[in-house]
């Protein structure tokens, strides 16, 4: 360690510091943001007030991306931000009603014959 704060200064820490700065240190989504699964689909349903101090460029980037519905994993990949950060930002947007979420069926391994047959047919048609 070469000085105060230098533990943050190695090259691996750089993007991470930025990530958590973006979320103001929050590591889990806000009030109603429970569980943005990687394959939850997000769609923009509102327009952010540009003047609001709580709207950051990254929020706007998500809203722009999700004009066409997109999965949480794809948002993370396209914005090059870790999932933990994307989830916090999505929590903010959900809280103010700017996005809609289609969650995957998540009750541990629901067997759904109809869904499986649809997937099978889709794969066979590839």
């Amino acid at each position, binding site marked *: 360690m070469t000085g105060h704060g230098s533990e943050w200064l190695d090259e691996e820490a750089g993007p991470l510091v930025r990530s958590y700065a973006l979320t103001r240190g929050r590591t889990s989504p806000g009030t109603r943001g429970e569980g943005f699964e990687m*394959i939850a689909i997000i769609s923009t349903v509102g327009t952010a007030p540009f003047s609001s101090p709580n709207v950051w460029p990254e929020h706007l980037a998500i809203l722009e991306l999700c004009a066409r519905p997109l999965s949480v994993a794809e948002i993370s990949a396209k914005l090059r931000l870790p999932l933990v950060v994307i989830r916090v930002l999505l929590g903010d947007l959900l809280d103010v009603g700017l996005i809609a979420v289609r969650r995957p*069926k998540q009750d*541990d391994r629901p067997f759904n014959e109809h869904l499986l047959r649809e*997937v099978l*047919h889709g794969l066979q048609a590839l």
Partner: protein
Amino acid sequence: MDSKRSEAAQRAADMPLAVKILVAGGFGVGKTTMVGAVSEIRPLQTEEVLTDRSIGVDNTAGVEQKTTTTVAMDFGRITIRDGLILYLFGTPGQDRFWFMWDELSLGALGAVVLADTRRLADCFPSVDYFERRGLPFVVAVNCFEDGFDYTPDEIRQALDLDGAIPVVMCDARERRSGKKVLTTLVGHVLSIHGHAPPREAGAPVY
């Protein structure tokens, strides 16, 4: 706000539903290659950050240290039909990332365990994991040119697999081959639940 929320709920019902299949196996076995071969997009990468607080035991001041681990995952996408999307996730290779596997496995339709006959033992942890978890899986043997020439039965024996678990020979680079692995998996999931194995009219028989 309430009307905004019900509007959002209505909108959500009109949005696509996503399902996922995992592609597991040892490091360098071809997971991302297979995902890329069948995906309609170039594989993308997302990452999860794990923060682990630990207290330095040999530091009398008890200074708290924070260590972070980043786990990268490659994934691809197949649009099954309008409104239904299949995501394929390559699982992180190292065992220390089991915590990620739990999240990935939740709600997954099933898994593909990719095996390399030159390093068959590399896929043991994946097989063990999915067996323990009860997630349906198939074993796909990626046939490298300099690999050993085993039969599916020999592979099944070497991996001590239940006789019902399909073992498929494949070339992870080939779209058609990857497609065969995936259809075998979904057919296997259907048959586990007592539904007729898939033999759709007009579908190629391998």
